[in-house]
C-alpha cells in the first residue's frame, strides 16, 4: 500500500512528463475504442443487412448452384424439393430462381442476373409486393446501384432479353416498379428482381428454383431432397473474410499507436531512473528491498495507463457518444465495390473490445515500465546512494 501511495505521489510530482504520458496513452485508448467500435458497428450492420436483404438466415441450394461460380448458373435450377413444402407454406422459406439476361438501357447492353421471387414473401426486404402485375406491364424492382448503372428511374421501361429453358431467345419491355436502397451490393448490383410466376412463364421453368431462402425459424437444417443446406455461418463468409482483414488492419494500427505511446512511457522511465539514483539508494537505505524499488517504478509506469483510462473516459466518452449519433459518413464507392456499407458507419462499443484494449494498454505500460526498472535490483545500492547506477 505504501508503494502504491509513494508511486502515486511520485507521478503527480513528475508534472509535465506525467501529463504527456497520460495524454498520449489516453489518445491511443480513445482512438482505438473509436476505431474498434466502428469496426464492430460495421460488422454488425453488414451481417444484419446480409440476412435481411440477400441471404436470409440459411439457404438450400440446387445441387449445381455455386454462388461463387457464375458458370454454374445455366444448369442451376430444378424442381423445389417437396420436403420443404411446409416451410414454404408457413412463410418460413421462399424460392428464388436466377437466370442470366441482358437489358438494353439507352441502347447499351448490360448482362444481368434476373431473379424471380414470390411477391408475397416477407423474408427478404426486397420490395417484392411491387412485383404484382398491373395493366399488362411486367414489373421489375432494382436497387439503387443498378438504377445508377442503367440510368433507370421508377416507371421507366427497358428492353429485357433472356433465353428460355431450351436456349431460345425472348425479349420484352419491363417496367421499373420500385427502386430500393440497400447496403448489400450482392442483392443489387447487376440484378433485376421479377415476380417468380412471371419468370416461370418467361422461361418455362414452372415450379423450379435456384436456391431457397429460409428464416431462422425454418425447420430445415440439413441437405434436403438432394439440395445443399447452407447455414448462416457459410452465408456470412464474405463478411467474415472482410472482418478478419479489417481486424488485422486494426491490430496493425493499434500496434503502431501503442508503440509510439509506450516509447514515451519507456523514455520517461529510463530518464526517471537515471535522475533518481540517489532517491533509489535512499529507498534501499531506508529498508526498501531492490525488488520493492523495481515494483515502485513499475507501478509508477503502469499508473500512467490507469490515469490515461480515467482521463480518456472524461474527454473521450462524450466524443464517442456523439460519434454514435452522427456516425462516420461513407463514400458511395464503398457500396459500389460490394461492401455492405450504409451512408454512414455507426460505431458499436462492445464491453469486451473496450476491456481488451484497456488491458493491453495496461499490460504493455507495465512491461515497458518494468524493463528499465528491473536493473535497479541488480545494482550495488551503495553506489546507487552515491548516484552511480550504471
Amino acid at each position, binding site marked *: 500500500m505504501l508503494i502504491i501511495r509513494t508511486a502515486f505521489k511520485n507521478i503527480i510530482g513528475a508534472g509535465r512528463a506525467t501529463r504527456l504520458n497520460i495524454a498520449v496513452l489516453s489518445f491511443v485508448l480513445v482512438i482505438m475504442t473509436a476505431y474498434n467500435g466502428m469496426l464492430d458497428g460495421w460488422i454488425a450492420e453488414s451481417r444484419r443487412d446480409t440476412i435481411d436483404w440477400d441471404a436470409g438466415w440459411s439457404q438450400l441450394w440446387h445441387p449445381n448452384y455455386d454462388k461463387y461460380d457464375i458458370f*454454374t*448458373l445455366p444448369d442451376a435450377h430444378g424442381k423445389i424439393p417437396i420436403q420443404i413444402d411446409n416451410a414454404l407454406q408457413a412463410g418460413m422459406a421462399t424460392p428464388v430462381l436466377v437466370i442470366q439476361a441482358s437489358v*438494353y438501357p439507352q*441502347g447499351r*447492353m448490360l*448482362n444481368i442476373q434476373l431473379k424471380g421471387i414470390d411477391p408475397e414473401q416477407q423474408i427478404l426486404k426486397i420490395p417484392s409486393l411491387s412485383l404484382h402485375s398491373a395493366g399488362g406491364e411486367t414489373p421489375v424492382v432494382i436497387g439503387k446501384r443498378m438504377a445508377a448503372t442503367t440510368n433507370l428511374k421508377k416507371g421507366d421501361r427497358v*428492353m429485357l432479353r433472356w433465353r428460355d429453358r431450351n436456349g431460345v431467345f425472348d*425479349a*420484352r419491355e419491363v417496367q421499373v416498379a420500385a427502386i430500393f436502397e440497400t447496403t448489400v451490393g450482392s442483392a443489387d448490383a447487376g440484378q433485376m428482381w421479377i415476380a417468380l410466376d412471371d419468370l416461370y412463364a418467361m422461361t418455362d421453368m414452372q415450379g423450379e428454383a435456384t436456391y431457397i431462402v429460409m428464416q431462422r425459424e425454418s425447420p430445415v437444417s440439413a441437405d434436403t431432397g438432394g439440395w445443399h443446406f447452407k447455414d448462416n455461418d457459410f452465408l456470412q463468409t464474405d463478411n467474415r473474410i472482410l472482418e478478419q482483414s479489417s481486424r488485422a488492419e486494426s491490430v496493425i494500427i493499434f500496434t503502431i499507436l501503442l508503440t509510439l505511446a509506450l516509447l514515451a512511457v519507456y523514455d520517461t522511465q529510463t530518464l526517471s531512473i537515471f535522475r533518481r539514483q540517489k532517491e533509489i539508494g535512499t529507498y534501499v537505505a531506508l529498508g526498501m528491498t531492490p525488488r520493492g524499488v523495481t515494483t515502485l517504478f513499475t507501478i509508477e509506469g503502469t499508473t500512467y495507463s490507469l490515469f490515461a483510462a480515467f482521463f480518456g473516459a472524461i474527454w473521450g466518452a462524450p466524443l464517442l457518444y456523439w460519434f454514435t449519433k452522427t456516425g462516420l459518413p461513407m463514400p458511395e464507392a464503398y457500396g459500389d465495390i460490394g461492401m455492405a456499407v450504409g451512408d454512414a458507419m455507426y460505431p458499436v462499443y462492445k464491453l469486451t473490445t473496450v476491456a481488451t484494449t484497456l488491458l493491453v494498454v495496461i499490460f504493455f505500460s507495465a512491461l515497458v515500465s518494468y524493463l528499465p526498472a528491473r536493473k535497479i535490483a541488480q545494482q550495488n545500492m551503495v553506489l546507487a546512494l552515491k548516484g552511480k547506477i550504471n
Partner: protein
Amino acid sequence: MGLVLGGLLLPLTAQDGNQILRKIDRNMSADSRIIESTMIVHGKRNDRTITSKSHTMGTGKAFTEYLSPARERGTKMLKLEKEMWVYSPATDRTIMISGHMLRQSVMGSDLSYEDMMDDRRYEDIYDARVTGSEQVDGRTCHLLSLTAKVDDAAYPSQKMWVDSERLIPLRAELYAKSGQMLKQITAGDVKQVEGRWFPMHMTYKDVLKEGKGTEWIINTISFNQSIPANVFSKASLRK
C-alpha cells in the same frame, strides 16, 4: 374454291421454301473452309478493325487466329462441338468460354460467342415458307419466313430475303419468341468462289443496341481444303 386453292398452294410454298434453304446451305456450308477476313466494329466514338484467319471443319470444329491489331494479334479461338476456348498471348492463358461469358461480345462486336457457336445448317433448324418476292439492292429476292422446327433454336423465327438467282441470303431479320426483332444481318458483294456464290461482305446489327453494327469482310475464302486434324486441338492454341 379459294380455300382449297390456298390449301394446295401452302404446302407448295413450304416445300419451295425448304428447297431454297437446302440450296442456301449448299452454297454457304462446306466440309471445310479457310477464311481470311476483316471485322470492322463500329463503336460510339471510333471504329476498330480486326483481321483474322479461320479454319472450319463442318459445323462442329473451328479455329480462328487474330492477326491484327497488335493488341489482338496471336489471340486464338477454338470451337469443338459445344465447347469453346480462347487463348490470350498477353496472359499466356487459355480460358474456356462458357456460361455468361458466351453472351459477351466477340472483340466488342455485335456478335456474341454463342452466335459464333451456333452454326448449324438452316435446314436442320428451320422450316421455311416463301411469303413473297421483294427487291434488295436491285436483286429480286424470295422472301422467306423461317420457323424453328427444333426446340433449341436461338431465334425461333427469321425473315430472310434470298437472292432468287444466286440463292444467297441478302438480308435476314432474327426474332425473339415474343416477335421482337433482335438482330439484322445484311449481305453484299456476292462473288462466285470455286463454283458457288458467296457474300464477301456482311453486316451484323444487334437492333436493341445503338450503333452501326459490325461489318465482316471476307478477304480470301477457299472451300473443301484439307486441314490437318491437329489444327483443331487445344495444343494449337499455344503454338
